[in-house]
């Protein structure tokens, strides 16, 4: 094996790796070499930093949630507002990094998978910005429930390809994208949207997302003169959580909390809580980690009100941090998430994404039990605009339907 491979972590404990058909290996090796070459290249990092600041709107604010803190009556709660980044979620951090890399590698086309549509939107956006042709694969179910993002992607010039295989959600979109990639390796880069998949994706995506944690660290030190006691983030594939957590992993005394999709409850197929119940290790989608699966090894159906958390696997680094008891995972039900969605909106004037509402719900569970002098940072990975068709149906059903009917009947 090339010496260069030893320089990026291919495994996190027993997890991660590269479990792909042989024909994908050359593309992954090219990506690995490319990432290694550019990740610390001053020109590359300067360009990325400039884009982060002037295109993306970074640093995103670290906001002291005074009202939420007062209402919960426990620790001090800060919110890292990734929803204020361009396109409305943390996904843009990674998409920009990968698009820049794709350019350096001479690729003219990009492809991406998407669940909630935020990563597809981010990919379509950077593709427009860099003049790359873009195709986004999205499960048919997600196309339906996240249509505002589908519309936006098309507006940006991307082709949205509905995936009708399997569960018709994120996991099947990943498969479809990998397969398309196998057939179009020469000119196409796959912008994978979370810290998972075959090496080098988990490490590369984590690195691009670590800007969240680096900023949060600087900001909290400026504001409070000390590090936080608690970090909370939602975990779909795990990119916003590892991005927040990673720059703090070497620090003593910090507790890391991951909120998973508890969905309708603990029954099989009703949630996407990989660490709820009996976590089971498996190999799928190019990596080894925990997957929701049956005893034969078939991946299971998942459910979450938030498309971005509706995924059977979890990033390998998070799996390893789970095993070492570094991250404490907890399932948050749809009901809890919707309740947290309403509370944050009313208390702080911040409408969080449904994914992020899971993190808020976890904060709501934890904060009252924690001393007032402790500090918690909650990652608001995205804002809730994209979810309007879901939240309105859940929270304001009759009026919303009346509005939609009126639009259909009388809209021009």
């Amino acid at each position, binding site marked *: *094996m090339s010496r260069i491979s030893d320089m990026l972590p291919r495994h996190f404990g027993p997890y991660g*790796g590269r479990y792909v058909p042989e*024909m994908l*290996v050359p593309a992954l090796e090219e990506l690995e070499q490319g990432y290694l070459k550019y990740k610390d290249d001053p020109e590359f990092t300067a360009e990325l930093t400039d884009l982060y600041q002037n295109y993306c709107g970074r640093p995103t604010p670290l906001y002291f949630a005074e009202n939420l803190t007062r209402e919960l009556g426990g620790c001090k709660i800060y919110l890292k507002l990734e929803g204020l980044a361009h396109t409305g979620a943390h996904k843009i951090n990674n998409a920009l990094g990968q698009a820049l890399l794709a350019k350096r590698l001479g690729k003219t086309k990009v492809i991406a998978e998407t669940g909630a549509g935020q990563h597809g939107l981010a990919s379509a956006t950077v593709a427009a910005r860099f003049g790359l042709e873009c195709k986004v694969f999205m499960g048919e179910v997600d196309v339906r429930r996240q249509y505002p993002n589908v519309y936006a992607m098309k507006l940006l010039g991307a082709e949205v390809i509905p995936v009708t295989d*399997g569960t018709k959600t994120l996991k099947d979109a990943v498969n479809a994208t990998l397969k398309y990639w196998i057939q179009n390796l020469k000119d196409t880069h796959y912008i994978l949207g979370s810290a998972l998949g075959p090496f080098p994706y988990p490490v590369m995506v984590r690195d691009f997302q670590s800007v969240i944690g680096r900023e949060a660290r600087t900001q909290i030190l400026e504001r409070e003169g000390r590090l936080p006691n608690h970090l909370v983030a939602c975990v779909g594939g795990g990119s916003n959580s590892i991005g927040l957590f990673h720059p703090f992993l070497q620090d003593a005394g910090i507790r890391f909390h991951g909120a998973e999709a508890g969905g309708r409850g603990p029954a099989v197929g009703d949630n996407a809580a990989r660490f709820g119940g009996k976590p089971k290790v498996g190999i799928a989608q190019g990596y080894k980690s925990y997957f929701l699966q049956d005893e034969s*090894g*078939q991946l299971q159906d998942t459910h979450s009100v938030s498309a971005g958390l509706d995924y059977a696997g979890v990033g390998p680094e998070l799996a390893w941090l789970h095993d070492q008891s570094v991250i404490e995972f907890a399932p948050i039900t749809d009901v809890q998430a919707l309740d947290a969605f309403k509370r944050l909106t009313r208390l702080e004037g911040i409408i969080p994404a449904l994914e992020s509402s899971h993190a808020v719900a976890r904060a709501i569970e934890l904060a009252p039990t924690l001393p007032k002098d402790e500090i918690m940072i909650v990652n608001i990975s995205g804002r809730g605009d994209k979810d309007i068709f879901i939240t309105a149906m859940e929270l304001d059903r009759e009026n919303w339907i009346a509005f939609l009917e009126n639009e259909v009947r009388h809209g021009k």
Partner: protein
Amino acid sequence: MENNIDRALANKAGIQLMTHVVAGYPDLDVNADLIRLMASRGVKLIEIQIPFTDPLADGPTIMRANQAALDQGVTPRHCFELCAALSKELPDVAFMFMTYANIPFALGLETFMAKASQSGASGLILPDLSWDESDGDYAGAAREHGLHPIMVISPDTGGPRLDAILSRASGLLYTTLKVGITGAGAGIDQAGVEYVRNLKKKTALPIAAGFGISSPDHVRMLDGLADVAVIGSHIINLMDAQGLGAVDEFLAACART
């Protein structure tokens, strides 16, 4: 080690066919009929795919078949039983299990190999269990169970990776004729022919070539070049559209080449 794969390839006259069956699609009884039909047309190498929810290397046809089989409740146990019954009935046919890493991993790789071997299989094809992952280097253990570890490569596999794979493979080497997924494209181009010709020079292993083979002409093109032509998606498509009779005719036409 010698098993049915070696025997099938030892005294061959011309190119052999290797066919593919997704266990449980359309159902296990039809699988058995299909396998009998294949054997009656002289097919000596048959892959039984254990269905998986996320078959990464497969195209739309085989993917759909996997899902349909799973929807019917087919489990690895059914696949072992199918192989056990048919390998007893057809002692000359070399059966191979093809599936994805998570299936053997869920059972335990050693247990999986033991069960595969007990059910009369002669080989394993696990395209996403990469030999350079620690649990992917199962070739030696497979042989101890009497199973050839059949490695899948593509025209882009080169240099030290190819050498590493060749040093592990036995029984036969399975190569795609182009970089793609199963069922992709419709045929064999000159680049594919050149590629197999060059590969032949690098290894003494019998070479099975596949992906996209869908006519007796394709088989004819490979005759004298590769040792085995692999036919997967096309047979499923034929069976779906026209039934087993059409598969029979197709195999008969291939056998005449």
